[in-house]
């Protein structure tokens, strides 16, 4: 991969919380190319959310260097190079759907007409036409998360960071949201870094799956996913899909996922 094509480059990233505390990340090396869909998967405490936050300059690494779009992570954040989606939708209760989606546009100085036009485009992209005047509490969990995705995409960032965005949804909704996300990804052609602890979700969505293990949080293997694009309902029944799911599962177990006692993800 040519350096110019790398959206994210991580070199020797480590993160320790507190004095002599938990090593959340140790010697992370990762290159993410333009247009890739990368999943970070691993058990709780493996540092996958922390790594995502280091890329987004929301958490400072203790050591190592991280480049985003060829700049420091801090500069990339200041240039608003990425959009972020969290596990919960994190909508502002006092804003309507339209105003939640337009929040980053407001901060970036787009005028009212530009914002309104962009909100309409995004509402149809996430299939929520007609919901612009609703308040967050009037929407289901899946709909709220679609609003949050629309908000992240509103200023067309080249990079989308997603921290277990569908973790709180039921299995049926999650599968539908997976299909929608892939459709959106195909349409806008941005790079996605996606944190999950669902093996099938990681395999179904990704071009590469990055397997992480805890104590200390590190990358144990990177598996290319060679399933055909675009992925459809048939993909989920493809024998190759099951082979890859098995590969990822074995990689997780080899990395010591079995020894893990459930504990909350280490986030600052």
């Amino acid at each position: 991969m040519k350096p110019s094509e790398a959206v994210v480059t991580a070199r020797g990233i480590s993160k320790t919380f507190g004095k002599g505390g938990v090593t959340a990340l140790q010697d992370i090396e990762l290159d993410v190319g333009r247009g890739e869909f990368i999943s970070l998967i691993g058990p709780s405490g493996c540092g996958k959310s922390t790594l995502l936050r280091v890329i987004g300059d929301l958490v400072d690494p203790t050591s190592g260097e991280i480049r985003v779009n060829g700049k420091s992570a801090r500069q990339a954040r200041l240039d608003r190079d990425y959009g972020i989606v969290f596990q919960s939708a994190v909508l502002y209760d006092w804003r309507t759907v339209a105003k939640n989606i337009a929040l980053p546009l407001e901060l970036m100085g787009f005028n009212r007409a530009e914002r309104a036009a962009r909100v309409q485009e995004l509402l149809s992209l996430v299939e929520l036409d007609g919901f612009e005047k609703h308040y967050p509490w009037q929407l289901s969990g899946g709909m709220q998360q679609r609003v949050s995705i629309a908000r992240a995409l509103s200023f067309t960032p080249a990079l989308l960071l997603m921290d277990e965005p569908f973790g709180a949804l039921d299995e049926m909704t999650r599968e539908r949201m997976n299909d929608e996300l892939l459709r959106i990804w195909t349409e806008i052609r941005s790079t996605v870094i996606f944190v999950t602890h669902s093996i099938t979700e990681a395999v179904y969505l990704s071009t590469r799956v990055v397997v992480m293990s805890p104590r200390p949080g590190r990358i144990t293997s990177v598996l290319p996913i060679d399933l055909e694009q675009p992925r459809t309902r048939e993909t989920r029944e493809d024998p190759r899909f099951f082979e890859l799911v098995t590969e990822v599962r074995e990689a997780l177990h080899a990395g010591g996922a079995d020894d893990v006692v459930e504990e909350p993800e280490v986030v600052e």
Partner: protein
Amino acid sequence: MSTLAHPASGRRNTQRVRKWGPAAIVFGIGMALWQWVLPALGVERYLLPPLSDVLQAFWDNRSELVRGGWITFKEALGGFVLGCSLAFGFALVLARWRPLGSALMPYMIAANAVPIVAFAPITNAWFGTLSPWSKVVIAAVLCFFPVLVNTLRGLTSLRPESLELMRSYAAPQRVVFARARIPNSLPFVFSALKIASVLAMIGAVVGDYFGGSTEALGVQIVSSVSLAQYETAWAAILVASLIGIAFYAAVALAERLVVGWHPSIRAGVD
């Protein structure tokens, strides 16, 4: 359309009766007890005069009572505005510079527990017995602490992701406050303002007790009692209560208009 509207509005009326009916019945029983049962039980006039005598006293002294109510209300309102705005501004500063907040908060909470009306005679010494400012300051100090503590809680109780989101937009602190912290604080602020409206009225009336313009409501209560005009004292207390309720209701209405998006308000709207 109109044929459809009638059953709907009829249903709404039924709901209204269901909602308010029990309270209205309790009100009626309370008034009847006051008027007939207490005198029949031999409760003396100086303990609690019958309702009709209190209403008569109100009617006879209506112009003095209304004027006195207005004076005391202005003291309460002045204290409310002064105390609440200072508290809100202070909360913004403490939320912006957290070390300052951690340094001062224990004292704020301790000061909140001080019986502030105990200072009423002192403020008279500071501002002069006849000055309305001595009452305004008591009301303001009473309002200050609950508004400060609640606003600060509202400004700082955002989910971490809400702030991470703002950070991802490289939003400066001014924007974080304007778009996230202050809107988030409003439900807390209004809960505190409702408490403060009641406290402001208490502060103003108690301030009057230690002296003030002879027209002020609190002064009228004290002088009526000393002249054994219990009916007039009770009529003045009634006026003070009505003002307090109206004040509270006005703040509650403002709350409904400003933070209508909040779950606690939505629950109240049908």
